[in-house]
């Protein structure tokens, strides 16, 4: 049993290294896919063990550098790991088509191991180590393609890593523990005894917020994400955005598990909510709104989905921040749905870029005829993302919405609503601008996406539909996760059942969602629409360009169409807010740091030995004053 955790963890890494060393086309890809499949298969195999040993999960321990390292496969860990490996498998298939070098395989598989490791770790040493491995590998993926973006990602990651390290150090200093169980116990005791001061607790909280926030791409630490997601192999981005960024979300859950009581004792309640959770919820809400607005304004499909990803992870944070069981349930469900629909989106994007070489809206049009399967996949993704039943995305969003309403957080709920509206706005544009309308002449020869990529898409498309139609499959398992979490919070072995109902029907205290009914209605509706389309009056074909100018005269530089500057009026309306870019703020900060560095270097090490002697004299003087006074 124990070895299986190790095998599951390190197979991708070893496969990546082998692929890198062997580097023969075909073998490389085979090894990679096998390496991606093994953890998934093992996780599937372990499912029953995990579920049956809810309160005594499989554990794996070893000692490194005097630290005891623990891996655990609780229901929570299994859930995240399973989602990650599902996306990992899809990524591997996608990469067969999109990536043609061993470098990518090495680091993609390395980050796969890192992500799995983060989810399975049950102590801060292995957690941090694998966190760093994951960061490093993903950084290498960005570095290969864009230096500037990689630097941004690198710096923010390093800041996050060091913030986490400091937080871990503080916890270790106060509790002497690095194992999650030990920390949990110690923090629980500490909450009662009050050993750790208020400021220290808040500092730890803030540090973790920074560390996890960076990885999750939470506002205002999101600035690395658009570049890193878009300047990458898009198959890998499916994993990056779909699985890797979940590590940040997972970190927030960890925060609850490790120190909820302590944080509550220290920070207290705020209008009936946990203050610390409220902060998380708001970070999530702001992230949703900001990222969704920015996504709407993008002209590049990669950028669009990058911002969209940020916004969707914001939903998860928001859900976790609600701090109720319902919130957790919604957040956890959204982890899955976001992974599958955003993963799918990125694979679709990968296919589009692979086949057309273009990334900007203005260069697309009418691809639905050329890449029908890809189009179908993207339709599923669009529906899911936009939160249209009966896709997985709807189920999770619905749960989150319910949670926010239940928790009496109308503003947060408003953010969800606004986010959904904006999401609708940008996916509609994507749907139309890319797939419909006039096809630019240079896209006439576009072929359907290659098979491996299509397989990858299918791997992600199927759960979108299955878990959309039968969300109960997920919620049933999520109940087990919540039970485990409850056990972790309070050592109580009680089966939690937050979302009830059947496989096709979700029942919460405030509402019911019957996916089956909705599906049936949708099928009927689509059938009617199809009949109308086929037998209805033929519409006159008009050019899609120059049809929409928002009341402005048409000029060369004020030329709006669905393919170009479609949402420019919105941008103009938001002009005041867009001036404040954290991206630019950080760049300026970096500039100031560099200027400071030069000033310090030139000023202190000024080359004059007499000045240097003065430094010595000043230290002596300080010593003297210290002694004299």
């Amino acid at each position, binding site marked *: 049993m124990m070895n299986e955790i190790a095998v599951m963890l390190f197979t991708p890494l070893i496969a990546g290294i082998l692929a890198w060393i062997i580097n023969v086309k075909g073998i490389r890809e085979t090894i990679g896919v096998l390496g991606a499949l093994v953890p998934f298969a093992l996780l599937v195999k372990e499912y029953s063990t995990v579920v049956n040993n809810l309160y005594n999960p499989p554990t794996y321990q070893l000692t490194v550098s005097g630290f005891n390292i623990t891996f655990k496969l609780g229901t929570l860990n299994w859930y995240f790991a399973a989602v990650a490996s599902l996306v990992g498998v899809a990524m591997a298939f996608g990469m067969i088509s999109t990536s043609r070098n061993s470098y990518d395989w090495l680091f993609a598989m390395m980050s796969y191991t890192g992500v799995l490791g983060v989810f399975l770790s049950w102590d801060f040493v292995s957690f941090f180590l694998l966190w760093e491995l994951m960061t490093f590998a993903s950084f290498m993926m960005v570095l290969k393609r864009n230096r500037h973006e990689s630097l941004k990602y690198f710096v923010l990651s390093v800041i996050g890593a060091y913030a986490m390290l400091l937080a871990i150090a503080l916890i270790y200093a106060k509790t002497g523990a690095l194992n999650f169980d030990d920390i949990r116990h110690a923090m629980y005791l500490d909450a009662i005894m009050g050993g750790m001061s208020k400021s220290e607790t808040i500092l730890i909280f803030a540090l973790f917020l920074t560390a996890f926030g960076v990885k999750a791409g939470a506002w205002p630490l999101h600035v690395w994400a658009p570049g890193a997601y878009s300047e990458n192999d898009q198959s890998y981005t499916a994993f990056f955005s779909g699985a890797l960024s979940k590590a940040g979300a997972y970190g927030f859950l960890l925060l609850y598990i490790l120190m909820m009581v302590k944080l509550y004792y220290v920070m207290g309640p705020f209008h009936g909510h946990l203050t610390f959770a409220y902060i998380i919820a708001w970070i999530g809400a702001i992230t949703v709104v900001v990222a969704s607005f920015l996504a709407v304004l993008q002209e590049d499909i990669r950028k669009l989905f990058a911002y969209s990803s940020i916004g969707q992870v914001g939903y998860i944070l928001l859900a976790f921040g609600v701090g109720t069981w319902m919130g957790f349930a919604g957040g956890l469900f959204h982890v899955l749905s976001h992974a599958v629909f955003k993963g799918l989106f990125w694979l679709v994007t990968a296919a589009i870029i692979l086949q057309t070489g273009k990334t900007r809206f203005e260069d697309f049009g009418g691809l639905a005829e050329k890449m029908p399967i890809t189009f179908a996949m993207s339709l599923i993704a669009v529906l899911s993302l936009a939160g249209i039943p009966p896709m997985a995305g709807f189920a999770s969003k619905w749960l989150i919405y319910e949670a926010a309403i239940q928790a009496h957080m109308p503003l947060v709920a408003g953010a969800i609503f606004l986010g959904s509206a904006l999401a609708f706005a940008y996916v509609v544009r994507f749907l139309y601008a890319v797939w419909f309308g006039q096809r630019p002449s240079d896209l006439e020869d576009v072929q359907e996406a290659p098979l491996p990529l299509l397989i990858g898409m299918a791997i992600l498309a199927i759960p979108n539909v299955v878990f959309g139609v039968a969300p109960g499959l997920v919620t049933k398992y999520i109940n087990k996760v919540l039970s485990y979490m409850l056990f972790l919070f309070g050592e109580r072995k009680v089966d939690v059942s937050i979302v009830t109902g059947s496989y096709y029907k979700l029942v919460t205290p405030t509402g019911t969602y019957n996916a089956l009914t909705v599906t049936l209605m949708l099928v009927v509706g689509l059938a009617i629409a199809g009949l109308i389309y086929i037998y209805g009056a033929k519409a006159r074909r008009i050019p899609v360009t120059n049809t929409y100018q928002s009341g402005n005269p048409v000029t060369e530089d004020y030329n709006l169409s669905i393919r170009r500057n479609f949402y420019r009026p919105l941008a103009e309306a938001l002009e005041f807010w867009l001036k404040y870019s954290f991206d630019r703020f950080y760049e300026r900060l970096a500039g100031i740091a560099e200027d400071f*560095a030069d000033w310090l270097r030139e000023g202190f090490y000024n080359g004059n030995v007499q000045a240097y002697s003065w430094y010595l004299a000043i230290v002596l003087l300080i010593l003297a004053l210290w002694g004299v006074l």
Partner: protein
Amino acid sequence: MNGQYASLLIALPLISAFFVPLIKGLGRKAVMGYLVLITAIQTGIAGWVFSEVYSTGKPIIVMAGGWKPPVGINLYIGHFAALFVLIVAIVSFFMAIFSYKAVTVEPIDKYAMLFLLLMLGATGMIATGDIFNLFVFMEITSITAYALTAYNKTGEAAEASMKYIVLGGIGSSFFLIGVALIYGATGTLNMGHIAQLAGTMNATAAQVGLALVIFGLAVEAELFPLNAWAPDAYQAAPHPITAMFSAFVVKAGLYAMARLIYILQNANGWSDILKLVIALATLTVVVAEFSALRQRDVKRMIAYSSISQVGMIAFALALGTQAGISAGVFHMVNHAIVKALLFLTVGYVGITLGGTKIENFAGLGKRMPLTALTLTIGSLAAVGIPLFNIFWSKVRILLAGVEAGYSWSVALILGASVVEAVYYLRLIHTMWFVGNGERIRENFAIGVIAIFLAALIVVIGIYPNDLWTLVQKAGQDIFNVANYISHVPLMGVGS
């Protein structure tokens, strides 16, 4: 074999240095080969001493002249000294090989002598158990360092050496005043004896003496703002010597500082001094990292990086806890390996491509792939990337620092480490993603050393357990003063 034979650690480099004039007529190759041979033998002796100390678990006390301390001077080769003397010897051995390629400036016989004496000085500083003898070995080390800094005889080299001399001179003068005060207050110079008597010292004399001794050593240990000489000296010295400076010369100063701090822990004003060292060490890290950020000369950049790491070690050593010292020693070992590798590779690039400016490193991944790879491993390790050795010691230092209540220092150090990550990344990027060039045949011996060091970095990074166990013993050696005193065979003197 009799433990007294550990005195060969001192005797061998000395007699070998004195022998050089007699073989200088045989030419450059002979002298360089001789240098390699002697450092190899020294490594052997150090290895024997190391295994002796670690297998018996007891320090070797070398009593010069057969006099028991405090009447005679003793060497105290405990767990720390045994470990570090070995490191000194190994690094010297590697750098002797490197010198064969790297040092062409005449007079080579003088270079060999100074090289051996630099090794001797650091060995003595680490091994000695007498505070004035420490001063002597410190001067041997620093005067050799002055000479070697200026060895290239360029204006810059002389300038760097001059700065080193002036600052080192002030430092050693005040150190000696401190020694005089401590001697005046205790009547003895033996460290164990001083530790015994520290509590009975006159309070003001102890306070001033302690402060001055630490001040003097802090100059050698490159603590801000007493380290202004260091970047110049590192930059100007011949490449192998720079590696030695960073790998063990500064470590000897750090160790001496730590040793004296704990020896005098019963002295008046002790905790104040500790706080001051912590403050200076933190500033050292911050200032050095920022100074390295926009540095165009890679050798100088790594020099600043070295200073910052040294600041981190000083921070750990001054925490006043067992955990801190063990972490500090751990970092000393790791840093020695990493900086030896970095200066070796950077120096090799310098002599092969005509300089150590960042421009020289463009396209290095294509021109000298092995050098570039090992340099990359060293850089990643220096940044503290997990699975490389420095990560573990850095984590240990941070844990110990926060545990000792210096969270803000740790936060500052971490903040500065972000800067470090950036400039190393720039270097790595330049090597692999900027520029192009002809493939150059890389030197075999240097390649082997570089690979060995890089492998060591990775092996320790992946499996740090054994080293950690080892350095904990070494840390114990510094921290547990009662134990130290009990091992020094002090004879009763006085009425």
